[in-house]
Each structure stands twice: as C-alpha cells, then as structure tokens.
C-alpha cells in the first residue's frame, strides 16, 4: 500500500507512455485494408500515421508489360468506384498521343457514363458515411438507389463494377437500345429520392452537430497537399478538371462547379450531395442529344504510341485522376504513372485530426472518401 501511495503522490514516478490504437487494417470504418496508427490521449487524437500497402498490387509495374488496350482493364481495379473515369483517362491519353479524334457520339456516351459513375460513387460514399456515423439505415438506402445505375451499366457494358467499356478510339459496344429510357427513368426516380438523403442524414441535428466546424482544411493547405475533388472544393479550391481542362463532352454542357469556403466535414459532405444534383443536370442535357455515328474509330491492330511523354487528367469521383505515360515507341508503355486522388487526400488526414475525438476521426476519414485500392494501386 505504501508503495502505491508513493507512486500516486509523486507523480513523476508514474510511468506514462503514449497510447496507441491501431485502426485497421481489419476495421469496419477504414473501408478496406488501411491501417491508421492513432496516438491518443484518452478519447482525443494526438496524431495519426496512415500505413498503406496492404493491398498493393503493383498495377503500374504490371502495365509496363501489357499492351495499351490490355492495360485499360487494370485501371478498373484501382478506384473501383470510378472505374469508368479511370478507363477514360487512359483512353484519352492514348488518343491524344496518336492524335485520333473520336466521334461525337463517343464523347457524349463517355460523359454520360462518367456522370452516372459519379452518382453511383457518391451514393456508395453516402451509405458508408452514414454508417460510419452510426446510422445503419443509410447504407441500405444508398445501395437501393445505386442498383438502377448498376443495372444500366450491366445492360450496356456487361459488368457492374469493372466495365472495361472504353477502348482506345471509342467504346467497346454501342449503347444498348434501352439505355436512354433507363437513364431517364433513373433520373426521375433519383430526383425523388435524393431529398430523402437530406432529411435522413444531413438535416438531422445530430449529424450537423457532429460535422460542422470539424476537421477544417484551409484553402492553402488543400492546395499544398494537393487535395482535389469535392474534398478540395469544400475548402474553396477550384480544382474541377471538367471545368479547367474540359474533355469529352464537358465543353458542351452547362453546369456549376460547386464551391464552399468552410472546408469542414459538413461541407465536404454537402458538396457531394450537390454534385449529385449537378451530375443529374449534366446527364439530362446530354441524354436526348446523343448524336448518331460510330461508337469507335478503327484503330490499328497493334497500337504503338510515338516516343515521348503524355499526360491526361480527368475528374474522377474523388478528385483529379491523372495518367502519365512515357513511351519509347513500343507497343507497351516504358513507364506508366497514375496520379490517384485518394493518395493525396489520405495524407492530409493527419493535419485534420489533431485534437479531435476518435469518433470524429472516423467521420473525417469518411468525408475524405477514401478508396483503398486507389491509394495502394
């Protein structure tokens, strides 16, 4: 007993140690095999250290040994929620290098597919965010509304997640005859359901209290860390590639780049909801005006890029996705590098979580919208 008293009253004899908690790699809220080593003081997070690489699959290296049409299908498996944008980025890069002009029809279809993918991705993000905050039901509502989009994809592309629908020079198939009708049905349906998302989660006082003013990312920091996509735009960093470097049919449509200034968790959330509305507007402008024409231009049997370096960026659901190809004139790339949005967005996390609670760490992580294969590649 005397010993204890001595220890208690002479606090310099108490041995203290940092309290580390491993969140992941097997943890429900990291949405994949990501490990976050969090240094805690009680409930309060001091700092975190993301450890990545658990599902690294060496896609960039693999691409060096594949021909250009073959490597596209690997990009499906990086950011599997914006598979279509990734496919398109590679195809655009190849087409630009070869100076191939794709038909208008292809551009329109690609843009519609992009926006559908964006909606589907944001829906899944919404489910997961709700679930991370403890509202289980959101998960099922989000998946319910994502199902019609996946059906559209399945009917036209033949797959639900890993489409491989783009090929250099165009598309793999023409759109299915039902495509336009289904898309229009979906937009009508989803315009009714999206307000439900607001009432259920974002209108809720608990949600607002939990997210407002939490994990604030300033514009300067966002630029410094290269945070793009809705996460960057919530801080007022205008980084929408669709506006800044328009590609495919984006020059033909009118839409707004949604910006916010607060940069907190709530606005990162809110911007994604607003992006879904914008995406629906874009689709509505295009869906009735798909021009007639070929769905692909005839390419050579073996595609060889001219010697040189080529870069193409697109706006994926998570931010700026870039493809950098170094070619030495052979049929496969000499080096291929993907600039994935998730990677930059993850590493800003440490700046955001200092001094928040563990529950907030999960919430902030959710609104950064991390997809782990996108980070690990």
């Amino acid at each position, binding site marked *: 007993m005397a010993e204890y008293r001595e220890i208690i009253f002479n606090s310099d004899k108490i041995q203290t140690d940092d309290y580390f908690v491993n969140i992941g790699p097997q943890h429900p809220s990291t949405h994949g095999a990501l490990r976050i080593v969090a240094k805690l003081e009680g409930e309060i997070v001091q700092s975190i250290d993301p450890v990545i690489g658990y599902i690294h699959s060496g896609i960039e290296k693999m691409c060096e040994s594949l021909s250009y049409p073959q490597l596209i299908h690997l990009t499906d498996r990086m950011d599997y929620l914006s598979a279509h944008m990734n496919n398109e980025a590679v195809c655009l890069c190849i087409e630009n290098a070869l100076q191939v002009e794709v038909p208008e029809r292809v551009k329109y279809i690609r843009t519609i597919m992009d926006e559908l993918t964006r909606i589907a991705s944001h829906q899944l993000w919404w489910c997961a965010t709700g679930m991370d905050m403890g509202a289980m039901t959101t998960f099922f509502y989000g998946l319910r509304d994502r199902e019609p989009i996946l059906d559209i994809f*399945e009917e036209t592309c033949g797959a639900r997640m890993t489409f491989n629908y783009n090929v250099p020079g165009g598309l793999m198939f023409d759109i299915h005859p039902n495509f336009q009708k289904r898309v229009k049905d979906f937009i009508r349906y989803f315009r009714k359901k999206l307000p439900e998302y607001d009432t259920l989660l974002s209108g809720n006082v608990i949600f607002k209290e939990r997210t407002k003013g939490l994990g604030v990312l300033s514009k300067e920091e966002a630029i410094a860390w290269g945070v793009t996509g809705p996460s960057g735009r919530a801080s007022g960093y205008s980084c929408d590639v669709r506006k800044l470097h328009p590609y495919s049919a984006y020059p033909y449509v009118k839409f707004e780049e949604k910006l916010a200034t607060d940069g907190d968790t709530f606005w990162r959330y809110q911007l994604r909801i607003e992006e879904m509305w914008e995406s629906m507007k874009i689709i509505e402008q295009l869906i009735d005006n798909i021009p007639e024409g070929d769905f692909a231009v005839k390419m050579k049997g073996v595609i060889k890029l001219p010697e040189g370096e080529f870069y193409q960026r697109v706006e994926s659901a998570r931010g700026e996705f870039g493809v950098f190809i170094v070619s030495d004139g052979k049929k496969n790339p000499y080096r291929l590098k993907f600039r994935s949005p998730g990677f930059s967005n993850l590493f800003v996390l440490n700046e955001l979580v200092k001094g928040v609670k563990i529950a907030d760490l999960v919430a902030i992580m959710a609104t950064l919208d991390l997809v782990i294969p996108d980070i690990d590649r």
Partner: protein
Amino acid sequence: MKALFNYIKEVLGGFYTLLQGLGVTGKYLFTPWNYVTQSYPENREKLQMFERFRGEVIMPHNENNEHKCTGCGLCELACPNGSIEIISKSILTEDGKKKRIIDKHIYHLGMCTLCNLCVRACPSDAIIMGQKYEHAVYNRSNLTKVLNKPGSKIMEGIKE
C-alpha cells in the same frame, strides 16, 4: 430572455429534424411488404442476366458438335493475363495437305478478369461471353476448362 428563447427554439428545432428523420424511416417501417431485395436461390429459375453480361468465356457448338475456332491463337495474344492457352495439332486434310487445327482451347476461369478482349480479338467469333454467374467449385482445378468439346470439329466454311 432572448437567450432563453433561443434555447427553446434550438431544442424544438432539433426535435423537429429528428422527427423528420423518423418520418423517412417510418414510411418504410410501416410498409414492410415494399422490400427491394430478392430471395436469391429461390429466384434462380427466373433470374435472367442481361444479354451482354460477362459471366465466363464459352465456345458455342452447334448440333453437329461443330465450333468455329480455327486455332489461330489471336485470343491467346489478346488476353492480358494468360487465361487462354491454345494447343493446336496438325492433321492431313483429304487432299493430302497439312493443316493446323485446334486441339485444345484451354481457358482458366480462375485467372480471367472477364475483360472481353479475347472475344473482340477472335476473327471468326468462335468464343462469346456466357451468362453463367455461379462459378463456385470445390477444387480450383475445376476452374480450368477446355472450351472445345471432345470430338468436335470446325464448322464448314470458316476460313483461316
């Protein structure tokens, strides 16, 4: 006084948003027959995949056990991950010429990423994407298939 008023407003406003949320879920709670899920193994008979659905690579044969594959090996070349192996053999045709035909078209479903490139590459449309979606097997070796049926021949009129 103003603080008190704000306090009450805050409490009631918060309550109202919660009630709205309850309204959304309540709408579904009291109509439990409006479910959106499907009872999977029961609806197996009715479940119709879309015609472009990519389930596996198959080689259709006609009623005379004939297929269209010439054994050219373009699909093997197109495949990004080596899921297809073509083993060909040479035979003597009736007019005494030597000819290479397909012996075994080996397809590793376990490695296939269902990317559709082989189907696009095939000049004679010998392989297509099948609609089967239940691929679970007890042994991995069962995923390696020979697509041309035993004793099958190439269809008349398919040129190299």
